[in-house]
C-alpha cells in the first residue's frame, strides 16, 4: 500500500494557505453582500407573515369582514377602505397617539367589548389567547400584517369605490366621514343613539337582512347544492322552492319563520349552531313576516340595498 503520509511540510503549508484563502474569500463575499441579504430576508419574512395572516383571515375574519375586507353591511366594518387607512384613527380620537397597525392589533387582540348597543350586530370577540381567544400573539401580528397590506390599493380608492360604511360610534356625523369631504371641516358633535338609526317596527326586509347579520352567513345568490353549500349557513338562492329540496318542509313560509324565531328547532345537518336565537326580540313579528315573504319572493332583487 502506498503511504499517504507526506513528510514534506511545505506541501501542507501550501494546502493550509490555500484553505485560508478560500475561507477569507467566502467570508469576504458574505460580508460584501450582508446588507442586501438582510434587506431581502426582512422582506421575505414580512411577506411570509402576510401569507400566514391571509390564511388566518380567510378562516376566522372573512365571515364578517368579507373575503376581500369589504365588510358586511350591519355586521362588520370595511377594512379594505380608503377611509379606514386615512381617517379612522382621527375619528376615534387616536391620531397621533398610536399607529394604525397598533390600533388594529389592539382591536384584534382584545376585541370590542364595549359595543353593546352598536350599529354592528355581532360584537367583535377578543382573538388573542392573552384575552381568552384562539390566536397566539404571532398569529395576531400576522393578521395585522395582512390587513395593513391592503393599504397600498385602498388609498387609491375614489369616493365611489370606497365600500366604507359610516361609523355611528363616533361624534363626527356620518356624512362628514365620507372621504370626499374635507376631514378638517368643523362640525357639531353628533349625539347619535342606535335607536334613531334602527327604529324598530317599520324596517325594510332587505335592510333587515343585512342589518340583522343574515347576509353574513346566508348567500342570496347561490343555490344550496350538496357540492357548494354555504360556509356557515345554507345558501338562499332558490329558497322560494325550498319545499322541493328540503324533505321535512311542507309549508315554506311557516318553516322559515320558525327557523328565524327559534333556529334550534330547525337546524340543518352540517351547520353548527351559529344562528342567534334572539331575533324574535330584535324584530317585531310584523317585520319577521315581511322578511319571510321577501325571502320567498322569486323575483326579489338579489342584492339587498344597504
Amino acid at each position, binding site marked *: *500500500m502506498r503511504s499517504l503520509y507526506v513528510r514534506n511540510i511545505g506541501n501542507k*503549508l501550501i494546502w493550509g494557505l490555500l484553505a485560508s484563502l478560500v475561507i477569507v474569500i*467566502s467570508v469576504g463575499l458574505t460580508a460584501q453582500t450582508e446588507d442586501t441579504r438582510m434587506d431581502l430576508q426582512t422582506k421575505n*419574512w414580512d*411577506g411570509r407573515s402576510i401569507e400566514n395572516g391571509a390564511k388566518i383571515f380567510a378562516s376566522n375574519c372573512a365571515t364578517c369582514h368579507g373575503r376581500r375586507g369589504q365588510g358586511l353591511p350591519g355586521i362588520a366594518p370595511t377594512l379594505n377602505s380608503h377611509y379606514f387607512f386615512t381617517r379612522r384613527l382621527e375619528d376615534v380620537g387616536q391620531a397621533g397617539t398610536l399607529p394604525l397597525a397598533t390600533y388594529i392589533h389592539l382591536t384584534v387582540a382584545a376585541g370590542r367589548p364595549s359595543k353593546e348597543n352598536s350599529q354592528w350586530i355581532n360584537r367583535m370577540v377578543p382573538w388573542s389567547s392573552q384575552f381568552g381567544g384562539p390566536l397566539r400573539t*404571532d398569529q395576531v401580528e400576522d393578521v395585522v400584517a395582512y390587513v395593513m397590506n391592503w393599504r397600498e390599493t385602498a388609498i387609491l380608492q375614489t369616493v365611489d369605490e370606497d365600500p366604507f360604511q359610516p361609523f355611528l360610534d363616533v361624534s363626527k356625523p356620518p356624512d362628514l366621514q365620507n372621504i370626499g369631504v374635507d376631514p378638517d371641516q368643523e362640525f357639531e358633535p353628533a349625539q347619535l343613539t342606535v335607536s334613531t338609526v334602527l327604529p324598530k317596527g317599520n324596517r325594510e326586509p332587505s335592510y333587515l337582512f343585512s342589518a340583522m347579520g343574515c347576509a353574513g352567513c346566508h348567500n342570496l345568490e347561490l343555490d344550496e347544492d350538496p357540492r357548494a353549500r354555504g360556509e356557515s349557513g345554507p345558501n338562499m338562492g332558490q329558497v322560494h322552492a325550498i319545499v322541493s329540496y328540503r324533505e321535512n318542509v311542507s309549508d315554506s313560509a311557516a318553516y322559515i319563520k320558525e327557523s328565524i324565531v327559534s333556529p334550534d328547532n330547525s337546524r340543518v345537518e352540517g351547520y353548527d349552531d351559529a344562528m342567534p336565537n334572539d331575533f324574535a326580540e330584535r324584530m317585531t313579528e310584523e317585520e319577521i313576516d315581511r322578511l319571510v315573504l321577501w325571502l320567498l319572493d322569486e323575483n326579489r332583487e338579489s342584492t339587498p340595498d344597504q
Partner: protein
Amino acid sequence: MSVQEQSADKRWYSNLLRGLNGIFVYLTAGISANEFRSMLRGTPPGRPNTRLKPHADAFLLHIKPSYYHESVTRFTHTYRLGLLSTYLFLFETITGIILMVWYAPSPERAYVDMIRLLSSVPFGQIMRDLHRIGAELMVAIVTLHMVRTYLTGSYKSPREFTWLTGVLLLVMTLFLSFSGYLLPWDQLAFWAVTIGTSMAEAVPPTFVGEIINLLARGAPDIGANGLLRFYLLHVLFLPLLLFLFFFVHYYKVVLYGISLPAQEEEIGEDTANRVPANRRVYYLSEVLVDEGSFLLVVTAVITAVVVFLFQAPLEHIADPQQTPFHTVAPWYFYWLQGLLKIADKMWAGVIIPGVLLVLLMAIPYLDRNPSRRGADRRVATISGVVAGIFMVILSWMGTPSYAVQGAPPLEIVQELMPEEGVGLSREMGYAHLPNGVYDSREEYEVNEEFAELLHDFRHALESWDEKVDDFNAPWGQITISQDQDSLKRVNWEINWISAVGEEEFFTQDFWLHADSYYWEQYGLKKYGVPQFLQQQNGEER
C-alpha cells in the same frame, strides 16, 4: 572606528536578539527561534531532543503524545476522524456561543429571535448555517469514526474501554444534536421532538415512562418548560458531559496509542507504544502542521459549502394544534422511525435500541478473536456490513416514502405546494403564477415554468388514479387570484369519483407573497452570494 565601539554596537544588537528569542521561547513553551527555523526546514531533531520541552511545559501539549508511529500517521489509517470529531465539537461550541447571544429559550421569543437573527444580524445566517451543518457533520463523522474503529478491529484488547466510552460519546453526540433540534421552535423542530420524547413514554412500566416523558417535556405537552429543558440540555448539560467523556476517551487513546495497521505486528500483540526511533514522527512540528492544515481544509470546505450551497431550514412557527402532513425525525433517527413503523412503541422505541446500544458497547468483550487482520475476522466484517445495510434499509423505511400515505388529493397538493417547504409552485415563485383558472383537462398558453407545474399536476393526478382504487377519473383546477397588492391566492381543487361511485372533491388555499423566497429549506441554496452580488449591481433577478 575603534574595536571597542564595534563590540559595544554588537552587544546591543545581540542583546536585542536574545531578548526577542526569550519572548519566543516563552510563547512556544520552550522552542527557540533557531530550533523553530530548523523545524520548518524539516531538519531532524538533535539529541537530546529539545523539541519535546513544550510537551512537558504546556498544558494543551502535555495531553498530546510527543511522537507517533509513522504507520498511524498515514491518512488512510485513521482518516483523522477522531481529530475531526473533536474539532467539530469545538467548532459547534464557538458558533453555538455566538448564536446564544441572539436567542432566548421561550416559545414567545425563540422563533422571533430566529427571524431576527436571519434578517437583522450581520453574519447571523452564516453562523446559524455553520452551526447546523457542523452538527449534522459531527453526527456523521463520529459514526464514521466508530465504523473505522470497528473495521480495523481497533477496539480489541487493551482498548475495550476506549471503545465503550466512544459509544457513549456517539450517544451523547446524537442527543446533543437532537436537543438542538427543538430550539428554533418551528414546525419541523416541534414535531420531531414530540415524536422523539413520546418514545420515552414507552419505557416499561407505564408510570416510569410517563415520568420520563414528563421530566423531558416539563409538562404533558412540549411548551415553555420543555423548550427551557432542551435548551439547558443542549447548551450546558450534554456539552459538559461530552467534554468529560471526551477526556476519558482521549486519555485512553494516548495511554495505549493508536493501534498499528494489523499487518505490521504479530497477532495478539500490541506494540503501538514501542515505536522504533527511525519510525517516530514528532508531533512538533510535523503532526501539528499535518493536523492544522487538514482542519483548515475542512473548515474551508464547510465555509464554502455554507456560503454557496447549504442553508439551515426554518419552517413555520411551532403550532401544537396543527400536525404537519409528514412528520419526520432528523435523518440520523430515520432508522428508529422505520422501526416504529413495523414494531410497537415499546419494542421499537426502547427495547431494540437499548439492546443494540448494550450490544454495541459489549462488542470488544464478545469478540474474543485476538486477530485484527481482515482475513481473520470475516465474520465480524460481514456482520458489521450486514448491520450497516440493515440500518440503511430501516432508515429508508423511516422516510415518508415507505408505508405512509395520505389521501391522494392531499399527497398531490403536498407534492406541488406543500404546507412546509418549497414545492414546484413556490420554487417558480410569485412572478410565474399567472392569475386565472386552469383546468387540468385543458391546455393553456402560459409561461414555461407554469406549464411545467400544470404538467406535473396532470401527471400526479394520473399516477394516483392508477395507484389508488378509491381515486378514479380525477381532474383538478388551479385558481390563481390577486388577493391583495403583491399577494396571490392559489386555490387547488381536485375532483374524483370514489370506489363506490360517489363524486368527491377536495380544496385547499395557499397564499404567496411577491417578496417571500422560501430560502430556508434543505437542499441547494436558491438564493445566495452570487445572486446578492447581481442584485447589488442593479441586475434583475
